[in-house]
């Protein structure tokens, strides 16, 4: 059974479509990274999954239960951190923990204490006085302490410094691995996701462009770097459409290809770049894949990149 299943989901704000006939399956136990440019619909998708918004079309289920029919017991097994999560600013952190703990049969006070220490959060400090980063840590603490089977996080690393982020990622990896949690998180921080995720989804303009395991994705997308004997501008406007995120710097040129046949790529390079002296091909990083996909989906950007 998949932890998250969404089929043909559509959601619109008035006449503006935010999600369009979207399918998403997050396997049980996966660490799924949801990527997408700003306004692509990531936050809306997570809210729809949590039942905070009702889709105009389609079906969503979490842990095998329709999201609109989640019972209190079902919700107790799901952790959620919203982007800019609203927390009661008048409470002290320990009061918030005391408020939430009775709701969860699985609330782990020791884990909460451990996370509090790890995040450097003071239990007696009022939540309203916390910095943005500390606020997200507090929200994460509240989402993780019940040891949820499924954890949904919307931009959880916002406002965190690199050390804490690294710590959190490690913590998540450890917990998710040992506890068998399923984690679905959206983030702009692709570097961290690369370490964390074993599944990746790319959401663009409300449509899921791709959703696949990280290792498959890495194999599929490759970064090609071409060194030339001298700068050559004669190919301008003649590049194949499969070459994504094309960048040129003097006599060097790089681009990303997907599902590429190495022989075919070499042949294309020789044909279009007669001055090519060396060709290096490696697996693309997640950031390179993200940028390539994002640019491909943005009209006008391709030409700009080529120039």
């Amino acid at each position, binding site marked *: 059974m998949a932890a998250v299943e969404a089929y043909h989901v559509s959601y619109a704000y008035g006449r503006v479509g935010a999600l369009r006939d979207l399918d998403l399956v997050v396997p049980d136990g996966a660490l799924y990274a949801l990527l997408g440019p700003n306004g692509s619909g990531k936050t809306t998708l997570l809210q729809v999954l*949590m039942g*905070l918004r009702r889709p105009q079309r389609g079906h969503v289920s979490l842990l095998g239960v329709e999201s609109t029919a989640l019972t209190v017991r079902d*919700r107790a097994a799901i952790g959620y951190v*919203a982007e800019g999560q*609203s927390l*009661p600013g008048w409470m002290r952190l320990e009061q918030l923990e005391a408020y939430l703990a*009775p709701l969860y049969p699985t609330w782990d006070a020791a884990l909460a204490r451990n996370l509090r220490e790890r995040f450097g959060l003071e239990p007696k400090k009022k939540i309203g006085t916390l910095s943005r980063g500390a606020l997200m840590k507090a929200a994460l603490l509240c989402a993780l302490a019940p040891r949820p089977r499924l954890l949904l996080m919307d931009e959880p690393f916002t406002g965190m410094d690199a050390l804490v982020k690294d710590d959190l990622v490690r913590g998540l990896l450890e917990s998710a691995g040992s506890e068998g949690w399923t984690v679905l998180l959206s983030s702009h921080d692709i570097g961290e996701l690369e370490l964390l995720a074993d599944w990746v989804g790319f959401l663009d303009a409300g449509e899921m462009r791709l959703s696949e395991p990280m290792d498959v994705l890495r194999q599929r997308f490759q970064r090609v770097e071409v060194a030339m004997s001298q700068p050559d501008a004669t190919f301008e406007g003649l590049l194949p459409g499969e070459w994504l995120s094309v960048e040129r710097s003097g006599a060097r040129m790089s681009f990303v290809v997907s599902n590429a046949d190495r022989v075919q790529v070499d042949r294309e390079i020789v044909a279009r770049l007669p001055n090519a002296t060396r060709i290096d091909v490696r697996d693309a990083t997640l950031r390179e894949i993200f940028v390539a996909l994002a640019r491909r989906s943005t009209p006008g950007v391709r030409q700009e990149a080529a120039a």
Partner: protein
Amino acid sequence: MTWLGQVRHIAWKDVRQSRWILGIYIVVVITATARSVAFPFAANGVATSVLFLVVVIGIAAAATIVQSDSPVRSDALWASRPFYPSAMLSAKLLLVLIVILAVPLLGEIAALGTFDVSRADVAFFASQSAVVYALWLLPTVVVAALTRDFRSFVVTLLGIIAGLLLLVGIALVPPSSIAIRVSFTRGGVTLLGTVIGIALLARVYTTHVAHAGVWAVAVTLSASALVAILVGAPPVTVVPGAAAIHAPPQVQIQVTNLDQIARWRQLQVAISVENAPDSLAAGFSTDTAILHLRDGSMVRIAQTFGATTLHIPDLPVHPDSRWLGRDMKTGMIGNFGIPLTDRDARTVARELLAVEVIGSLTLIQPRVIGELPLRAGASMTRDGMRARIARVDYSSDNPTIDLETFSVQREAVPRIALGNMNGLVDAPRFSLVNFTRREAIPLYNRSSSGGGDWLVLPGAPVQQSGARLEVKNGAGSMVPEDTWFRDAKLLIVQWIPVATYPVRPVATLR
């Protein structure tokens, strides 16, 4: 955690979260209660401000409680946690009911207890106040639930109120016609509104959706509640039955302007009543007039023409007392007009055969509430009235008494029956009595101030007034010497309805 456990858990959290505004609210409620109980004659402006604060802070507190866990904010903490939506809603409603509504209601009951009214009347007034305040809280809770923050709540609620007032103003809907249409539905609006409001809230708390349809219902609901508040309480139609002690009075009418019907465009009718005791006041209210024409046709004018005072009796004073300089022996007679259209006026002037008027006759009896020694500071509480003499001056050639009253009085007669009776039932009447000399002087209310007031909550019809009572009534009035006043007492009289008779007098023309 059980459902009930969650209700308690959330309510306790809300109490702690909203402790400041709830604390201020309770202080204001206590102040308002203390003012009503201990200082009923406090300056009206200050008192009204305190009472206004009760409602404003109550509304703000209710909105704060609801919005502390917004049902429409997708980033609200509770929405993604294992809370029962119904427990969340119940906790909010329970808190609003107990703290915002019930606390001042207890203050209201305590204040009513100081007016010497019956338990039934306390229950009646308290229920009136509870309904009116609930009508304020209903749109408050609904709008607060649908808006994302306090500022949006304030803007939306004020917008609905302004829109409603604008609608009434621009559409030139006379408030009285609104009153007629909705006055009978005030209780219904409260009950139905509460049911619809809770159903609406239950849906919003479950779905977190506030689309246009939800807003339409919410705005309609809020506007209905506000209209029900604006039009006021319907008249309490406690119509006393025909008293067995009186034989039915004989009512006769006569048209007095036969030659000028077409010009005046109305029929002027004189009415007289026989067989009714002189000790009672009488009022005649018209309902429908049927004009019988010579060709056998009829003109029916089905509307209320107001009421006519037929007789105001002498005030009851001590047996064997005599009035100084006053003769009240007049018969039960009066006049009223039946308006006609131009066309009807011409036809009626030519063809009128008989006039039949359907209406009712109400008899009202004066009753002494109490008597006060004639000195500044003297006070009494009786039958819903607290009265205090603020100043007495009988050294001048026109002795005056400044009297302050603070009263809750249940309207026992339909307003329609008393519309023209110079506020006979609304206002008490006064006279001075010197029991030693067995003499009495009527007092004339020359200037009065004050108006509708509240105790702790809006709703109960409370009147605070100050009256300057004078002995002189024209040049020929008799004014006793100073020593007469030293032994005199101020007599306060209330008017009690005795009976209402349906009557249908006919005047046949020769």
